């Protein structure tokens, strides 16, 4: 029973990370019709950037964090202004799979390559923000970094929900997602929301990278794995529904932990992916894939 409890805690912690990346992917997909396959790479840059500035360059930790987040935000802004602007706002607006997948896919490669140049290929992590041994409650163990991840997920997830649900900006966001042409006609600047959410989710991803990296450690290639899981969880939420993406992320995290603990530590992930593939094939419509395709 205690094993189950600890696995559940671990599962919810990783699930919360997946959930947040899934929310980032699906919120931006609603606005832009682009799947951000580089979201995990921003997390990697966050973790390795803070590590580099703090450990190698010797900057104070808060300064290192602020500088890293500023660089991520500035890069995301410039990328939107140059690449996405030419691709989507130009005289010949591109659409289809080229835009949906391949620009952010190229971006992911580019970021990973630059990270390899700057940070090398070793495993590093941002310094722990809350030092100390793991907390225990009976025989249940809570990693401090894990608790921080959960806290961030609740705060940022809650802020997202409040923003979408209760503010005019959130309504506009929803409208842009439902029908971008219609939204533009009623005076909503969908391009501004595309840029805002892209920069915002990049920064959120970087924050999660910083908070989470003491748990697992990051290399320049870690981003792709995170993006993949975020993409999958967003996919199971039908890409356009952040709430469902969040649940799907938690579900995948818990399932992964349980499979690793009870089935096989070695083949747990293989079984996980097989189950996820089977789910898509069994209920594509119910999981929201069909609507994501035609919409």
């Amino acid at each position, binding site marked *: 029973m205690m094993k189950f409890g600890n696995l559940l805690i671990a599962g919810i912690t990783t699930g919360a990370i997946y959930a947040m990346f899934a929310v980032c992917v699906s919120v931006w997909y609603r606005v832009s019709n682009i799947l951000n396959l580089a979201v995990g790479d921003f997390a990697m840059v966050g973790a390795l950037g803070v590590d580099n500035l703090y450990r190698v360059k010797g900057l104070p930790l808060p300064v290192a964090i602020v500088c890293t987040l500023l660089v991520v935000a500035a890069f995301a802004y410039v990328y939107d202004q140059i690449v996405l602007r*030419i691709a989507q706002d130009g005289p010949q607006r591109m659409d289809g799979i080229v835009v949906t997948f391949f620009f952010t896919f190229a*971006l992911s490669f*580019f970021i990973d*390559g630059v990270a390899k140049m700057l940070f090398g290929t070793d495993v590093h992590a941002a310094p722990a923000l809350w030092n100390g041994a793991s907390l225990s409650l009976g025989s249940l163990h809570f990693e401090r970094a894990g608790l921080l991840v959960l806290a961030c997920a609740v705060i940022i997830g809650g802020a997202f929900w409040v923003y979408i649900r209760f503010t005019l900006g959130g309504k506009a966001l929803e409208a842009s997602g439902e029908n971008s042409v219609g939204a533009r006609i009623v005076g909503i600047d969908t391009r501004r929301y595309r840029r805002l959410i892209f920069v915002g989710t990049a920064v959120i991803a970087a924050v999660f990278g910083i908070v989470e990296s003491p748990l697992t450690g990051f290399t320049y290639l870690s981003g792709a794995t995170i993006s993949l899981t975020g993409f999958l969880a967003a996919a199971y939420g039908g890409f356009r529904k952040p709430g469902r993406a969040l649940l799907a992320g938690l579900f995948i995290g818990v399932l992964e932990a349980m499979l690793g603990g009870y089935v096989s530590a*070695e083949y747990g992930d*293989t079984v996980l*992916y097989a189950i996820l593939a089977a789910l898509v094939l069994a209920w*594509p419509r119910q999981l929201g894939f*069909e609507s994501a395709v035609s919409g």
Partner: protein
Amino acid sequence: MNGLVESSRRSAQRSALVASRVPRGLTPTALVAVVGVVFVLIWGQQYAGSVFVLAACYAIVTAGMAVQIGFSQQIAFSQSVFMGVGAYGVAMLNTHYNMPVLIATPIVLVGSALLAILLGSVVTRASGLALAVATLMLPLIAVGYVSGTGFLGGAVGAPLPGTLWPSSSASTSVALVGGGLIVIALLALAVFIAARILTSDIGLELFVLGVDERTAAALGVRTPRRKLELFTLGCVFAALGGAMYAGTQQFVPETLVDPTAELALLIMLFIGGRRSVIGAVVGALVIQYLQGASNWVSVNILVVEGLLLTVVLLVDPEGLAGIVTTGIAWLRPRLGAAPAEPTEAAEVAEVAEPAVLAEPGVLAEPAEPADEGRLGARDPQTALLEIRSVFKEYGGLSVLEDVTLTLPERGLFALCGPNGAGKSTLLNVIGGSVPPSRGQVILSGADITRRPPHERFHLGVSRTFQSVHLIKGRTVLDNVAVACLASHKASITTRIARSRLDQARAQASRALADLGMEHLAGREVSSLTLEAQRMVELARALAPNPRLLLLDEPASGLSQEQRQRLAVVLAALARRTCVFLVEHDLTLVAQVSERIFVLSAGRVVFDGGPDDFRSSPVVNSLLVGS
């Protein structure tokens, strides 16, 4: 009129002649073969040549991807896994059974094909993103399996003793050059097969499938079968590339099957040009040579690939192939070497956009006898279409309630009703894209309730859509020819030998001539006016000589004058076939229809002739307003 038909026939024959002069697919094949052989013979023993051979192994894979992913837009992430199947298969047979690579390769290919069919019959049930996500799991599962299994060499990789060149006593240089030539020969074969398929009538089917699966099904394309064939083709090409990789590199690394390898293949395809076979080959060459070009590039290949892909896609989404094509089109008139393309000539003549309907009278002539065999006995006494107490519920919402109606062999019938009455749903139930919750759809006495849309199309049910569903990027002629393809029963492999695209185009140009639209044949569809686009849809629906023509709001968006022209066409059509029309324009409906059904909240509330229709209080209160 006859003259026009004659001239369009002549032009079809002329294009058939041009096609027979240079066999389909020969140009890219010859290009690949000649360049490849020259390269291998001159540099085969040096580094530059070995990079070329490695790139050729990848190019075999990307040529298959151009057909499957680029052209038909079936995004399945199965290539790296099947490259692994091919490479590990050859390595195992060579190492454990001492089998020469050239003998192991066909065995592995047959095994891969069987595995692909098995796997494909499960995963290709999914479409679009669902297919992408389901197959994304394949490399993840594969890499987990390979790193966990000692049998395949695990993370270390699997070396194999044999070389691709069969003779083990041959010197290293002979083995290198000979092996390289074998790879080039197989690459040329792969390019030939891919190019032949893309330029055939099935290539047109695949294009439509890539643009919109539902439209493809409504036009008679057997989408499940085509998707399975594409998946299998992609997998077999990948396995062949993998087998060649193992044979020439004599080593299979674990990284061959991981997701990064899959992404690298996609980068090659998209840089080269996703829809072009030769582009896919060039993409593989570019990436491999970049990696071999300098140490800096090879260390920072991710940055280079990321930048290159971004820049190429920004310049042209069709990749390097698209850039070259645009460049040639730009250069040609400036050099004055070649005559302007016929499409451009047509465009110049077409600026004024003359009336789409030059002479609709020809429609009154009896159509060519429809294929009797496919329809069973044609007894004038039996009704063509019977809808028997059809219900349709979405969740708890009832859209159709006990709808029963019968249509005869010929005539024009209209379906009216306020928005949300269930008109389009009823049309979808007849067309087959929406299954009824209860009730039956009978065509000429045969129950077709459970038949899929493409089968109904071949039984003579043809339709247009409420919003225009034309295939962008193709000419008017090809858009109509899609409905005339005789390839629905044929397998994709038969089109390597023979294409029937010219026959389909000839039939399409007759249908266009029928509507007086043959002058538009060469135009790209998105350059047309809405009226012309609707007429192209109509031509497409008519071209296969359907028995039942379902038209969903053909007049919407048309002016009064255009509607009158449409009315003339519809009246002419009704003399040879059964037309069932959903329409909001009550004047048009009352003018052309011999019988009108009014649907309200899913029920038939009126059924009668145009005179009753005009005077009916039910109709007035529902449709005209009090």
